């Protein structure tokens, strides 16, 4: 039976494939949004997919003790190795097909990693992978903003001020963590112009996320998708509010949804509506007050958080994506002559 490997864009919720390739019986938390990302990821990519998983919740919770919820082939890889594993697998498949040992057909290679495995340890390997444009592979970073598997330690993706095992709020010092979250998809998009697709998504916008995964696999080459996953365990909220927190992260402007396709940045979903002025950003307090990890915040902390998020929208070159701009006196730099070299007229 021939399997259709085309991955057309999903038009709406009624168009989402019914087939489950990541089935029930995985030891994730109640309301685990990262498990939902895994489910949507393979739903979007279809059965002709190899999934590689670096250490983290989605490895340990899903496949401990000699059991698996995966219908597609899945293999564990080391904590910082998702980029290397994706590249190696894609290269291996390519060679086997060239030598005629495998039928020449499209097989999707997806390697996932958590924020610890991807944004902290594996960043170098992912960066290297995104420069090898002759291999087709997708790296998916599911970001629950901490080392959640080992009971919530600080990662470079933990938001400003949040409580983790490494940053408990104390009587003498209220905030033990005051670094601003790293902008991983923006950084990778800015630094890897040959990667054809880099996106930021959220499982609360399921169709948007599935379409991003499909577009990444369709465009080919090394691609990257980053998802923000509300985590009831580490963020400390009731599991039933996972979707609501995902929506709020986007609507407050904290987590912009976008994709960079062949060097062109498209804002998607509510982020586009906010940028176009069709929707007002919600104040971040709506997002913060729903989570126990921010329970120690006083007004001053909320104001700082709001000011930093505001900066993403007022000061950044591309709101929420490129975190710098030019000084006011150099605004002309943004309007430079964009003609290719051979068409440029000699300036006076």
């Amino acid at each position, binding site marked *: 039976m021939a399997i259709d490997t085309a991955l057309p864009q999903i038009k709406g919720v009624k168009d989402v494939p019914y087939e489950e390739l990541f089935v029930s019986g995985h030891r994730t938390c109640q309301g685990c949004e990262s498990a939902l990302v895994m489910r949507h990821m393979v739903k979007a990519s279809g059965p002709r997919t190899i999934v590689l998983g670096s250490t983290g919740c989605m490895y340990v919770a899903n496949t401990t003790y000699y059991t698996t919820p995966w219908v*597609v082939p899945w293999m564990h890889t080391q904590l910082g190795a998702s980029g290397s594993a994706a590249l190696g697998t894609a290269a291996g498949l390519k060679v086997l097909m060239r030598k005629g040992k495998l039928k020449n057909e499209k097989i999707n290679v997806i390697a996932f990693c958590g924020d610890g495995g991807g944004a902290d340890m594996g960043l170098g390997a992912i960066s290297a992978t995104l420069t090898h444009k002759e291999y087709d592979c997708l790296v998916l970073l599911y970001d629950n903003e901490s080392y959640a598997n080992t009971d919530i330690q600080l990662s470079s993706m933990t938001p400003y001020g949040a409580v983790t095992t490494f940053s408990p709020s104390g009587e003498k010092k209220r905030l033990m963590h005051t670094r601003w979250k790293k902008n991983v998809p923006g950084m990778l998009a800015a630094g890897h112009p040959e990667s054809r697709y880099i996106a930021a998504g959220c499982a609360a916008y*399921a169709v948007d996320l599935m379409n991003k995964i499909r577009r990444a696999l369709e465009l080919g080459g090394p691609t990257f998708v980053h998802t923000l996953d509300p985590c009831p365990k580490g963020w400390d909220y009731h599991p039933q*509010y996972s979707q609501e927190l995902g929506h709020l992260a986007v609507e407050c402007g904290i987590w912009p949804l976008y994709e960079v396709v062949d060097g062109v940045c498209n804002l998607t979903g509510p982020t586009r509506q906010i940028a176009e002025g069709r929707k007002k950003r919600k104040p971040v307090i709506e997002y913060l007050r729903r989570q126990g990890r921010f329970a120690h915040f006083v007004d001053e902390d909320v104001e700082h958080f709001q000011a930093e998020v505001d900066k993403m929208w007022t000061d950044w070159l591309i709101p929420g994506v490129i975190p710098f701009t030019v000084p006011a006196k150099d605004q002309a730099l943004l309007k430079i002559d964009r003609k290719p070299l051979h068409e440029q007229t000699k300036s006076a």
Partner: protein
Amino acid sequence: MADEKSISVEVVYRGIFQKTLAQRICRSIVLASRKKGHTGTAFSRYGDSPERNGVPAKQFAIVAVDEIELEASMAKYEPAVVDISVAVDDTLVKGVESWAWYGRQPIWKPIREGGTLLVTSEKTPGEIVAQSDRTPKPYTLGIVPGGASFAGLWVYKDDHTDYRVLGALAKVAPRWLPLEAAKQAALDLAKGDRSAAASVQYGYDATVLRQVGAGEGTDGHEKLQFTKPGWTTMRPGIVVDARKPGQRNPQYKKYTARTQRPVVNFDTCIKCTMCWLDCPDECFEVTPEGHYEVVYEACIGCGICAQVCPVKDCIVMVDELKFADNRDRWQDWKKDRGAYNTWFEKVSGVPADPKAAAPASAAGGDD
């Protein structure tokens, strides 16, 4: 049993939600026993780590007359037999399945013959026994009045459940935890707050004890037991066969993580797919009419479906102890809608006919 050299207590709890509570109970047991010159230790079970929200976990407190006896009676990871088991959420009496291959274990399984099971509950002892597996050995059931105390990893809900449980333990194990010592330990933990000692006294006074004889209990729960694969039967590279399409993971079902279950009003369902789409545990299946039914063997009761459902009271979360089995309910609705809706109203407490409901609000989702 006056010549006992040691006593072991396990606390069965909901992972993450009650982690701090279980820690506090185990710590207070050791602290209270030290007031009487005993010694003890409190520890959590290695296999539960990392804990997951709702997945049943265990912590232990072992108390002994001296250090030598303590070391002799210390279990490595999980004591096979305990004197007292404390379930801090009453839905845990439907069984405990903590990880893959573990199976669903009856709540009384590790309790020694004639031991004690304490359950924090607002139910009667009869209702609790009716939901526990049929027991081959007699034990004492104690109901500590109060609902399950749930909190998060960072913010602890200090509702004195720990002190009430300590009071109940003073009632069932006075030799190891005399009431006065328990009160003293509670006062220490609460930094001198007298209400903590009052809660210990309340737990002591209000705990209802009932003898459960051999043969009491239900046979309604699924028997889920596995023969574990040994290293000789595992394949090179520890390869595990992938699941077949349409199959669910048979080695880990996870439904004992559930404290509430979603009940669906198929008559008001608008077939929007949101419950199915947003379920992180793949537990919905589409029916021939395009409705989404819950597969209760896979549902872990997170409540996301009830939150994302755009129709008010179409999916209602209901206390797990109101149900005796995991049978799928869509069949009932298919057979007899009237009877199904009567049943729906009875368990959920909301009207099945939305027109009969109070002023219609725009959408469910907020509470």
